[in-house]
Every structure is written in C-alpha cells, then in structure tokens.
C-alpha cells in the first residue's frame, strides 16, 4: 500500500511534473495496429472489482492460457506515478496490457498518445456499451477506452454513532461530527462534494468555484473535522468505529450494507459525484489482441451480470439487467437497484466533474495533496 507520507509526496509531485512535461507529447495517431492473438494477458485493476473465479471463465471462453490479473491499482495518483507514467512516458513497452484508470486520467493518457486505439474489429461487444458512457469529451464514441464500472461518491455512515441521519454534505460537514469524518482521497470527488455544499456545480467548474470548494475542505481540515483520508479502506474505518461518517464509493458502501445493514449509504441532498473507471490498452502493449479479447468478454451481458453482482457498481453494459433477472435470486434483485442501474431520478442527482484547464487541475491536485498530507491516511 502506498499510504506513507513520503511515497505519497513522491507520487503526487511526479504526477504534476509528468503531466506538464507530457503536454507536448505526440497525440494518438490513426495507425491501425493489427491485433494478434497471444496466449497471455497482463491486467492491472482496482481491488475487489472482479470475482477472481471469473478468470477461469475468461480463459475457458477465449482459449488464453494465462491471465496475470493484479489488483495493484490503489488510486489514480499512485497508479499514474508508479505504473503508468514510468512505463509509457518514453514510448517503451509496458509490462501490462490493460489498466483501469478513472475517466479523467484515461482522458489525459489519450491526450498524451499513451493509449492504443481499440481494435473494434475484435470487440463486437462494444456495441453493448451504454450510450450514457459514450459522450465523454475526451473520447466521443469510446474508441480508445471501454468503461469497466461506474460509481457514485456519496455519504456512508453509521446512524447509531452519528445519532441522526446524515443525508446532506452540509450535515457531513456539521461541527457535531468533528474528528469522526472520512475525506475521500480523490480530489475531484472530495472537492466536487464541497462545491455542491457551496451551491456550485462540479459538472461545470470554474477555477473560482473549484478553489472555493477546496478552501472549504481546508477550513474543515484545519478545524480537525476529518479524521483520515480514505479510499476503499473506508469500509474498515467505518466498521472499526474509527469513522462515524465518510465520503464513500457506492459499490463498496452497498456491499457493506449487505453485510451490515445498520450502515447507510446516501446520495446527498445536494447531489453525488459520478465517475467511471475505464479499461485502456497502453501504447505498445505486447498482448494487444488479448487485452481486446478481455474487453470483449467483459462486455458480454452474462459476464457483466456476474461482475456487477460481485462489486455492485454502476454497470455500463446494455443487457445486463436482463441477464441478472435471468439468474434469479439475489442477482435478480440487483436488476432494479438504482446504485447499479441508476434511474432518471438518481441520475438527476449525479454530477460528473467537468474538465478545467490542465494547469488549474494540476494546481488543485497539488493543493489537495497537501491537504491529504495534513489530514493523514487511514491505517
């Protein structure tokens, strides 16, 4: 885990410098690389995103001999600094064939020309991509990335400990919870929620409103409001009683509810931040065709149903609801879960972080990193 202060500083500073320096890098070209079948594929994903027994299903259905699946992607900053940037910056051959950054980082990778165009000729299931995931400005029509799962950053809390429902960001920031609140470690989500509390729109941020959101978080941190910075470890922090309430990711919060129904997850009254993690094939990936085969496999609704039933995140694959219903039992109940298949009412309360210019974003990232250093990470 990369939660030490030194490691965090190292990776964050490198993210800023790296991103600046790569601004002039070549953009992705039109060259159509011909996909060739190989016997292996190396995948780096976030933890708890896939039932590992599904790997056998993949090798069985595609005939690949080996899937080297690593859950080494902890967060976007360390993912960029420790994995992506060192291997792709100088145009080398990466030791992985597929990685799953969050959409904003995937956009930056595409801009830098670090991503292969998808060989759509061997990904016929691309047609199952939900149109709602196809409108990103950085990749209209999704030719360079395929979303793995989406999610929402809202509030998870223990009502017994908070003593009252926490249904708004305003309540999460209430001094009554001082020292018992978790701060999510992704800048766009934390600042986005703070912007919503300020009455600003994180889907259309400007430098001033984003800075105001960050200033609110800094003010709260100075007042000792946040106990720790959390990522997917917020679950342990809540169940251990270290935190009473926290900014939280919808999938793991929903899983927590299944095990411990006393915990609540809410989309705050002001709204939640929506995002998606997306599969990209790095430039010069050795097993390019096999990585594409993985994408195609993951976009089979029957497979997507198993993945969604495991991680409970927002599913980007059309036909998955029907596939879940056909499984019956617990899986069938998930087909109408708005955390996995958001309905219009839910979608209306979601905000996807809108892009700012790179310099402003890097500045925000640096200042947010200083804030997380000040607050400290959960152990």
């Amino acid at each position, binding site marked *: 885990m990369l939660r030490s202060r030194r490691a965090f500083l190292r990776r964050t500073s490198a993210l800023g410098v790296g991103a600046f320096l790569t601004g002039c890098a070549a953009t992705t070209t*039109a060259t159509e690389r011909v996909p060739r079948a190989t016997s292996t594929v190396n995948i780096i994903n976030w933890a708890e995103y896939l039932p590992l027994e599904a790997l056998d299903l993949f090798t069985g259905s595609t005939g690949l001999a080996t899937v080297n699946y690593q859950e080494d992607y902890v967060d976007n900053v360390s993912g960029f600094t420790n994995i992506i940037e060192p291997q792709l910056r100088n145009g080398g051959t990466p030791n992985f064939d597929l990685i799953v950054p969050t959409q904003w980082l995937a956009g930056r990778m595409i801009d830098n020309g670090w991503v292969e165009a998808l060989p759509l*000729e061997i990904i016929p299931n691309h*047609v199952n991509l*939900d*149109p709602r995931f196809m*409108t990103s400005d950085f990749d209209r029509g999704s030719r360079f990335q395929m979303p793995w799962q989406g999610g929402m950053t809202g509030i998870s809390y223990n009502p017994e400990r908070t003593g009252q429902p926490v249904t708004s960001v305003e309540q999460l920031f209430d001094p009554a919870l001082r020292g018992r609140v978790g701060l999510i470690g992704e800048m766009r989500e934390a600042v986005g929620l703070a912007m919503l509390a300020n009455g600003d729109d994180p889907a*259309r941020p400007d430098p001033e409103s984003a800075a105001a959101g960050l200033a609110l978080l800094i003010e709260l941190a100075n007042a000792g409001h946040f106990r720790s910075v959390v990522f997917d470890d917020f679950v342990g922090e809540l169940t251990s009683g270290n935190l009473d309430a926290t900014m939280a990711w919808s999938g793991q919060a929903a899983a927590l509810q299944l095990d411990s129904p006393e915990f609540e997850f809410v989309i705050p009254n002001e709204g939640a931040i929506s995002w998606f993690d997306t599969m990209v094939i790095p430039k010069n990936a050795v097993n390019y065709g096999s990585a594409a085969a993985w994408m195609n496999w993951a976009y089979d609704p029957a497979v997507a149903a198993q993945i969604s039933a495991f991680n409970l995140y927002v599913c980007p694959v059309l036909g998955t609801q029907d596939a879940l219903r056909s499984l019956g039992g617990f899986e069938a109940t998930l087909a109408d879960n708005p955390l996995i298949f958001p309905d219009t009412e839910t979608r209306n309360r979601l905000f996807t972080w809108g892009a700012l210019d790179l310099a402003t974003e890097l500045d925000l990232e640096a200042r947010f990193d200083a804030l997380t250093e000040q607050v400290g990470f959960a152990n």
Partner: protein
Amino acid sequence: MTNVAQLELSQTGRRKTPTVLYMWVGAILTFLAISALLSFLAIQTMSASGSRIVNSTGPVVISTQGLVASIAEADAANTAVFLSGIDGGIEDVSQRRLYESALARAPQQIEDISAGIGDDETTHNALKQVALQLTEYAGVVERARLANANDLDGAIPELEESLDLTGGPNGMLRNASEITTRTQDQFSNDIFAGGFLWAAAGVFLVVTLILLVIAQVRLRTLTKRLVNFGLVTSTVFVVVLTVWLAAATIGRQADLDNASNEASLDIAASASLQASAFEYKTQETGAIIRESRAELPNQTTVEAIDESLRRVNELADSNRERALAVEVQTRWDRYLDASGVISARVLQGNFAEARAEVSGEGNQTFNGFNTSLEALLLLNQEQFDASVTSAESRLEWLNYGALILPFLAGVAAWLGYRPRINEYF
C-alpha cells in the same frame, strides 16, 4: 551536323571543343534550367495546396460535421428535457446537462471552422448564419423551457421554433451542409493543384534526357572516349530527378485520392446519414408535440437513411471502420425499435406515453446512434489526416532536389563538353 563538326575540326586543326557542341551544351543547360524552374514551381504549388488541405479544407470538413453532431445531440437532449417536463412532469436534469455540454462544444467548433475557411464569401455567410442561429436557438430553448415549466401555451410553438432552427429548410444543419459542400469543392481543386506545372516539368525533363542521350551518341563519334563521364553523370542526375518527381507526385496523388475518399465520400455519407436521421427524429418529435399522427416520419426519410447506411457500410475500407459501420447500423436499429414503440403510442393517441418513451429509451438509443456515428467520423478524420500527412511527406526535400539536381546535371554536362588534350579527332 557530325560532318560540319568534323570539318570545323579539320579546318582549324586545333584541339578544342567545336562551336556546335557548345550549342548542344547550351541547349541542354537551357532545358535543365527550365525543368528545374517548372519542377520547383510545381512542388511549391503542390506544397501550398497541401498546406491548405492540412490546415484548412480537412479541419473545416471535420469540424463542420462535428458541429452537426453537437447540434443533433443538443437538440435530441433538449427535446427529451422538454417532453419530460411537459404537463408538470419532472425535467430530466441529466439530459439537460447533456444538452448544455453539447451546446457548449458548438462555439469552439464554429471558431475552428472560421479559422479554416479562408476568404470564400459564401462559406463565411453560411457560417455566420449558423453562429447567429445558434445564439437564437439557445434563447428559444430557454424560452420554451420557461414556458413549459409554467405550463404556458407558448411552450410548444417555442419548441417548434427551436426544431425549425436546427433541422428546418433554412436551419443550422442546412447551412452546415452548404459549408461542407463548398469546402469539398475547394478540396477537389487543391488535390489537382500544380498538375499542369508537374506535367510540363516532366516533358522538359524527358526532352533533356533525350538531348543528353543524343549528345553522348554524337560525342562517341567525335571523341576518343567511349564513355563521357560528364554526360553520363548529368544523365544520371536527370534520371534521378525525373524518377523522384514522378514517384513523389504519383504517390502523393494516391494518398490524396485516399484522403479524398475519406473526406469526400466517407464523410459525405456519414453527414448524409446524420442529416437524414436527424430529420427522422425531428418529424417524430413534431408528431408528438403537435399530437399529429400524419407527421410521423415518412417513408422517404426512412429510405434515405437506409441508403445512407448502405453507403457508409460500402465505403468502409478498413476492419475498424467496418466494425464501426456495423455498430452504427446496430445502434440505429435499436433506435428504430424504440421509435416503433413511440409511433405505436402516437397512432393509439397515447401521447403521454409517447413522450415518456422519447425522453427515455428513444433519446438514449438516438444518442447511442449519434455518438457512434461521430466515432466513425472521427476515424475518417484520422485516416484523412494520415493520408494528407503522408502525401505532404512525399514532397519533403524534393524542392531542394528540383534545384540542386539540375544544377549538378548542368555542371556535369558542361564538364563533359570541356576540351581535353587529344580528345577530339
């Protein structure tokens, strides 16, 4: 001529280059100079037209289609927002954000087009009209939204006006189409720019080669040397230039033909499909908001879409493009399924359910179609850019070659005619 030269030699008894041979070398040097000049001018003209294609024609065609996609997406989303909010319904905020995002892209696209269209007045006027209409459209949409929220009578006419501004006979899509047509005409002109000069240069180079060959044959009869190294070297330089010029321009033309295929045919087919699909959706919306069964999409529009889809599939010239064309077709079929439900509701007179279907599945599937078509367009753009870049790279260094090689050939020819001791009989 040979007799005259021999006579001249015997009369003077001096071992020097005969005057007639000076005339030969003079002719060769003159032809070389003209060839160099024509080659250089041809390359300059082709380079200029290539730059125009890279910096202007291509980006304008692409940005225009991008603008059309943005307008189509904005309008589809806006219609969904409006229909969801009708009769006191809850407005679809996510679609509203999609509308805002699509509308926000349009000014930059207009700016990109403006930067590339040069001084063609018709194109400028069409673009100016689109820019004005876009501003007007944004205003009409807000008025329609306000009236809709307050359940005022003017809401429907305002929405109709917004539809007219986008897909009407003088709407933004029509003006965008005018820009595309004009730009493609310009592209066709640019492809063939420099062709006459290139042909003339080729003729002069070939004539020069013939002169050099004849000269060598003649000199063999006048001198003791079997091979005149100067003239041979000169010939080699001219051959190199001729082959280089021919290979570069033929290769360039092939690249530009390929680009033309991407830009003019593929993009035109995609644009036509986009326009027909949008017309279909506008007719569908019109039927719902005016509660008029007769206004449902007509057979002509459906046939136009089928024809465009067929054309897009037919023109796909790479595996990836074919895959995208199949995806476009599949997503259109999905939209048609949703549209079938909408039409059925309209025919039943159940307009409330028709509106709900448009706001939900209808809009989602249309967005899927529209975005996948945009992806196809972007792929065409990349193929176009790659072809044009390849075309331009073929001229690299050739302008230097066009001047240096004839110069070297001239020097070599002159040296080949220089008198040497006992060289001439």
